[in-house]
């Protein structure tokens, strides 16, 4: 019974956190987390239901079903986070570029000397 309460509290906290952040581009991801948390709570209190669903898809035990889905969900989350970080990195790059361009320490243009040596022909 104790583990059921702990799992319910953890999943409930996750669902609440996702609900609070359900805005803009993150909304579909938040919704997915809420749905996964609620399904998790349902299976915690109805383990037989997990066994039944597992049987339907050809998996022996409900616990295995949850493990497989948990693994896939974890991988998916890492992938989404990776893309999200890459996107943030792009925004950070634009910001850093803006700062660099506005803060240029300029040297006046120089007059270049004529080229040295014999030029090579390009090799296409």
């Amino acid at each position, binding site marked *: 019974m104790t583990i059921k309460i702990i799992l319910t509290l953890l999943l409930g906290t996750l669902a609440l956190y996702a609900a609070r952040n359900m805005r803009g581009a993150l909304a579909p991801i938040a919704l997915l987390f809420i749905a996964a948390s609620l399904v998790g709570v349902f299976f915690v209190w109805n383990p037989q239901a997990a066994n039944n669903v597992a049987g339907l898809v050809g998996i022996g035990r409900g616990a295995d079903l949850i493990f497989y889905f948990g693994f896939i969900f974890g991988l998916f989350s890492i992938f989404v986070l*990776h*893309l999200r970080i*890459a*996107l943030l*990195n*792009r925004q*950070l*790059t634009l910001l*850093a*570029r803006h*700062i*660099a*361009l506005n*803060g*240029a*320490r*300029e*040297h006046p*243009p*120089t*007059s*270049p*000397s*004529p*080229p*040295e*040596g*014999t*030029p*090579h*022909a*390009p*090799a*296409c």
Partner: protein
Amino acid sequence: MGDRTFVVIAAYNEQEMIGQVVRSVVPLAGRVVVVDDGSGDESAQRAFEAGATVLSHPLNLGQGAALQTGIEYALRNGAEHIVTFDADGQHAPSDIGGALEALQRAEVDVLLGSRFLGRAIDMPAAKRVVLRLAVAFTRMTTGLKLTDTHNGFRVMTRSAAERIKLRQNRMSHASDLLSQIAQLKLRYAEYPVEVRYTEYSRRKGQPLTAAFHILVDSAVGRMLK
């Protein structure tokens, strides 16, 4: 070659060499632009004292991001030709003049330096193998027939620089650039250059495992397009 030729150098913790590299290039270009990519040393100050215009990223973003910043600065300031050049002293400044003339004579948009058409001095054998594999990979993915795909020495015209946008911040920018040359159907040619591997350049260069990161970055970059 003229006043509107900009040499763009990306530098990250290059205080040992950057002054010397800038001084060797200043007489050959209208403007030398060093993009200090969040260095924790004196790179920016030494480049400025040597005669470069210095742009400073507030944090380290990678060579690709630094080059794109330098290219944007050059375009805003009227560049007609942009040369990219490494900060570690691997490239020969004497190649710049000939490359600019070759670009104009061959009427191409981008001239790509090739150490395999030119000279690779003291190149480690493992590096040679990885670079050959990169050439084969590039040929497979872009169709570009090149002999050297990750050479930091390049010359591009203003119109090419306006169209190319380096989106890969780190070392994958070299592959990104080649993909864009292929996609944009830019005219390109290779040019024989000298690349000298010194103890310093080996220490500063990419480890061979970087090839794996380049593949991952390229794949993620394509997803984000």
